[in-house]
């Protein structure tokens, strides 16, 4: 009897000690971090963080781009959310509207001047994330084809007219070669390839207060006419097919992204190519606008380690850490202001140009119905590309749909 009671008390003591040590181990912080980049790139950065914060471990889980969003959605639905998560800028408008993101306004106030891209994670005055890396689009051109067409391969086109002329010259070479790679109806991609021209011409989508649509404008109409006109000196295809054709040396120019910096050396090591800012309408008018997107680090209202997550996020966006990621991935660039002065970018002028392109890149409006708006714009541009509507009709139709959506949530 006594033996049993003593054993019982011993067991209880043991359990208490066990619980205490277990919670001590948890108090040493384990941050669950979900992100999309390869482990070999991110793990060294995380190890540096762990060395700076002894007692803290980071459990990194890599997501795939295919269906990664489904996983994040399921986690949010069940409350089983990570502490720190990487989100793509396209998902941000809905996420911002959801009320599930942790408010970091106070925690990141001092970082405001050092990074760009805050509009991706800001609604009103409240900030719900930190911009980590940015991605944009620029003009890629094939120097060998330029030379063959009698163009100066050190002087890429700077205006729309020069772009059309260059594309026409390359297109005339024939033999399976096309001048310009026109992106044809591909959800969530077409928008990024067309809008730079519209934005560069001064066109807008929504008014600044996000309460009305201003898409139907002469600037946007002119841009769409120009874009549709490029078909006659180019080829219409999906993005990865265009990229492949560009690498095979069959396309003279196309607007594409920094991922080519990584895949060209891998798939087409001998290709001589150059990068330039997206051409503007005229030499003295308009801007070299492009699409501004990127990856944002957020924490969720239901995350267990929000404070530790914020510290990890602040660590990750430090110039040297973001640069480590960008230098390896190449498809993105750090969000840090002035990062193009870093030694890495002095050695890689093409990638530095991407950073310069951000300065005139335009973010998409943070309207909750943004996904529908983007789909509406893409549908109408497609109608014009397939000659079902004229540019003016397409822009007007898009305006009408945007006006309906602007009122909705």
């Amino acid at each position, binding site marked *: 009897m006594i033996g049993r009671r003593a054993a019982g008390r011993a067991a209880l003591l043991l359990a208490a000690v066990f619980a205490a040590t277990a919670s001590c181990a948890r108090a040493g912080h384990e941050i669950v971090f979900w992100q999309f980049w390869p482990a070999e790139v991110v793990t060294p950065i995380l190890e540096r963080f762990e060395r700076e914060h002894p007692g803290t471990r980071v459990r990194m889980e890599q997501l795939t*781009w295919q*269906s990664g969003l*489904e996983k994040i959605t399921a986690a949010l639905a*069940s409350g089983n959310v990570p502490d720190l998560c990487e989100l793509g800028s396209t998902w941000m408008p809905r996420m911002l509207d959801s009320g599930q993101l942790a408010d970091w306004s106070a925690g990141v106030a001092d970082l405001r001047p050092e990074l760009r891209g805050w509009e991706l994670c800001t609604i009103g005055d409240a900030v719900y994330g930190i911009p980590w890396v940015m991605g944009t689009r620029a003009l890629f051109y094939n120097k060998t084809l330029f030379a063959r067409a009698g163009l100066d391969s050190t002087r890429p086109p700077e205006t729309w007219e020069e772009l059309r002329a260059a594309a026409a010259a390359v297109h005339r070479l024939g033999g399976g070669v096309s001048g310009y790679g026109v992106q044809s109806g591909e959800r969530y991609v077409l928008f990024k390839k067309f809008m730079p021209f519209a934005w560069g011409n001064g066109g807008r989508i929504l008014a600044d207060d996000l309460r009305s649509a201003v898409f139907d404008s002469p600037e946007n109409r002119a841009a769409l006419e120009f874009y549709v006109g490029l078909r006659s000196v180019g080829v219409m295809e999906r993005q990865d097919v265009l990229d492949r054709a560009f690498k095979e040396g069959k396309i003279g120019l196309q607007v594409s992204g920094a991922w080519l910096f*990584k895949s060209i050396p891998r798939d*087409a090591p001998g290709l001589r190519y150059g990068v330039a800012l997206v051409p503007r309408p005229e030499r003295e008018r308009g801007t070299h606008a492009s699409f501004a997107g990127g990856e944002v680090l957020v924490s969720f209202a239901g995350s267990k380690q929000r404070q530790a997550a914020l510290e990890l996020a602040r660590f990750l966006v430090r110039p040297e850490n973001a640069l480590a990621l960008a230098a390896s991935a190449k498809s993105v660039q750090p969000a840090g202001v002035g990062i193009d002065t870093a030694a890495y970018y002095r050695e890689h002028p093409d990638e530095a140009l991407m950073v310069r392109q951000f300065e005139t890149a335009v973010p998409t409006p943070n309207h909750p119905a943004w996904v529908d708006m983007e789909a509406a714009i893409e549908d109408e541009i497609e109608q014009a590309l397939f000659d079902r509507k004229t540019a003016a009709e397409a822009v007007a139709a898009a305006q009408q749909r945007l006006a309906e959506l602007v009122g909705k949530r």
Partner: protein
Amino acid sequence: MSSTERAGVSRWLWLGPLLATMLFPFAWMLVVSLAPVSGGSLARALRGPWDLGHYRALFETAAINRYLVNSAVVALAVVALNVATAALAGWVLGRRRVPGERWWTLGIVATLMLPKQVLMIPLYLVLARLRLLDSYAALILPFAADAFSIFLVRQFVAALPPELEEAARVDGASDWLTFRRVVLPLLRPALAVVAIQSFLTNWNSFLFPLVFIDSDRLRTLPVGLALLSQTEHSVDWGFLMAGSTVASLPVLAVFVASQRHILSGLLAGAEK
């Protein structure tokens, strides 16, 4: 004998070209996996020298072996459970042993009719509640009974002559004995097909293993391959094709191994 040979030659004539078209994408896959630099272009892949570089890179990635093992464990467990549950349920349904059997069958088939994109989130909620997330159980238990397999066996049973079972019953055998001694051997072809299709579906499954598993040590092959070869905008073709070629081998092995079970069906009538 010679008529068989003649039949063979004529079959080759018109099946051969069809076979060639069916095999062409594999040839594509194999060629791209052997070309060091191709960017996914067949022309470029055919031109250059070939080497096993991508396969070497594949197996030097330590994680690949782990992914292979995880996929194998999960797939084999699901196959075993599917074959068992399909044999049992399929027989009972095929022999009309439950009232309203047709409605049962329709109901079971109906569970295939809601797309997984919609079922995924509530299933995740269930697994979270049962604390099964991030474990083998999450990839095995929900798929233990498969409507496709049950329906297949049920149809197969419906076409089997009932005389053998009746004979066994007249001899006094219980249900279980009848099932084990008489029915199961007759079901071998159907169960072989269940095994093949079960293995295949599970081996290549992507969405559920991605969503229900967090830890890299439990990751399955399709997810692992995507992580290693696909970024948001570009694909490492050589690596992906090498990985896919390797991934097809176990399925082919299961298929070839199960062929003799499918062929054995023709003994059904002879065994008296």
